[in-house]
């Protein structure tokens, strides 16, 4: 019987973690340490619910409710001078708490401050698009949908952006294996040649370090080649010499001599 591997998080895990080891935390400080951030936080708190706020690595992080997203971002853009949405994406916590954590990274150029707005949504909860506020969200939300399957309402063009249009599965979820599920591994063969070609072409070879000394068709015998189909003998390690051109030379083409070296340092003395 094979060992049970949980399927809700198939990413690589460290093979050993000390049982009583507690990971340290990156320092968080209270928002009151920074006057500018405090003013912004109060502006948000005045109209919306904030569940948590702190400063980490010189940037304020504010947790809000997903319903308030458009409102908070409008407030930040119009009143608090956060004119650019640098980035928006999601973090997959489906295994731990069945939710996605969205983050919106804002930048204020006049105040030279960066702010992160975060919220938690359920797996099938939809959010409102902020692309009417910031056009950069247009593509970011498409990418978020493509990679995580987060549903976004009122988006001008909600189609997959990085994966092909007919892809099944949301790659950045923790349940999606790095090397792709079965649909992914046969995608190009199915699309170009059809399912019948799967046997002809064969499965993908994903073992990067596989070396087979009897393999005359791949790269393992590089430099020590034998004729096609011949048996490589154990003791014959005859290196195939580098031969740039045929021995007798080619008509009108200058014979290439590898000992005829041009010093490139010559060209640097201008």
């Amino acid at each position, binding site marked *: 019987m094979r060992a049970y591997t949980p399927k809700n998080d198939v990413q690589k895990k460290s093979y050993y973690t000390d049982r009583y080891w507690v990971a340290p935390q990156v320092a968080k400080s209270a928002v009151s340490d920074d006057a500018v951030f405090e003013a912004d936080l109060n502006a948000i708190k005045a109209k919306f619910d904030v569940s948590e706020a702190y400063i980490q690595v010189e940037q304020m992080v504010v947790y809000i409710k997903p319903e308030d997203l458009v409102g908070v971002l409008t407030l930040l853009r119009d009143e608090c001078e956060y004119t650019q949405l640098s980035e928006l994406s999601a973090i997959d916590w489906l295994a731990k708490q069945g939710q996605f954590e969205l983050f919106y990274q804002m930048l204020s150029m006049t105040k030279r401050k960066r702010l992160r707005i975060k919220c938690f949504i359920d797996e099938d909860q939809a959010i409102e698009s902020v692309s009417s506020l910031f056009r950069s969200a247009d593509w970011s939300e498409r990418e978020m949908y493509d990679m995580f399957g987060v549903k976004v309402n009122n988006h001008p063009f909600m189609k997959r952006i*990085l*994966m*092909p249009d007919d892809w099944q599965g949301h*790659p950045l979820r923790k349940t*999606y*294996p*790095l*090397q*792709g*599920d079965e649909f*992914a591994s046969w*995608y*190009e*063969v199915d*699309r*170009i*040649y059809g399912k019948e*070609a799967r046997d*002809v*072409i*064969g499965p*993908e*070879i*994903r073992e*990067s370090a596989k070396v087979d000394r009897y393999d*005359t*068709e791949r*790269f393992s015998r*590089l430099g020590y*080649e*034998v*004729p*096609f189909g011949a048996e490589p003998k154990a003791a014959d390690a005859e290196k*195939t*010499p580098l*031969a*740039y*051109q*045929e*021995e007798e030379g*080619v*008509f009108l*083409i200058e014979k*290439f001599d590898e000992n005829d070296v041009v010093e*490139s340092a010559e060209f640097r003395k201008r």
Partner: protein
Amino acid sequence: MAQHQVNYSQDGGLPVALTTIDKVVNWGRSNSLWALTYGLACCGIEMMASGASRYDFDRFGTIFRASPRQSEVMIVAGTLTKKHAEFIKRLYDQMAEPRWVISMGSCANTGGMFNTYATVQGVDRVIPVDLYLPGCAPRPETLQYAVMMLQKKIRSEKAAKAQRPKRLM
């Protein structure tokens, strides 16, 4: 898998004695290989560098053409992703015979460092390849060596009938 027409043994082991016409035709073909610019990723930059001022490609008679109809060798330089696989097959089909493919760089040979869901693990899953060029990214001189190898290979082929189709499936 790509069937191999590549002969791993040395020049002396040619199976066929070539006629003069073959020789002349092959000489012409090998020395005016027009390449299809298929720079997909970082190797494409090295391919451009190998065609630029220091490592010139024009001395091989190779000009980079953008259209598959006018080119003979497709140098696949860079990572082939599954989204793009369909298009490389289309472009390969649009090239006229005789045509050859050089797979440049680790990503085109075997998928390279990107052992992920979106990368085709080697261009030869989709199109038949004549020459594999390892490196990440291979130096421009390496690409030029590959072109010289391809020229040698072309000169050793039979020119009379159209190339035996390299059946991928």
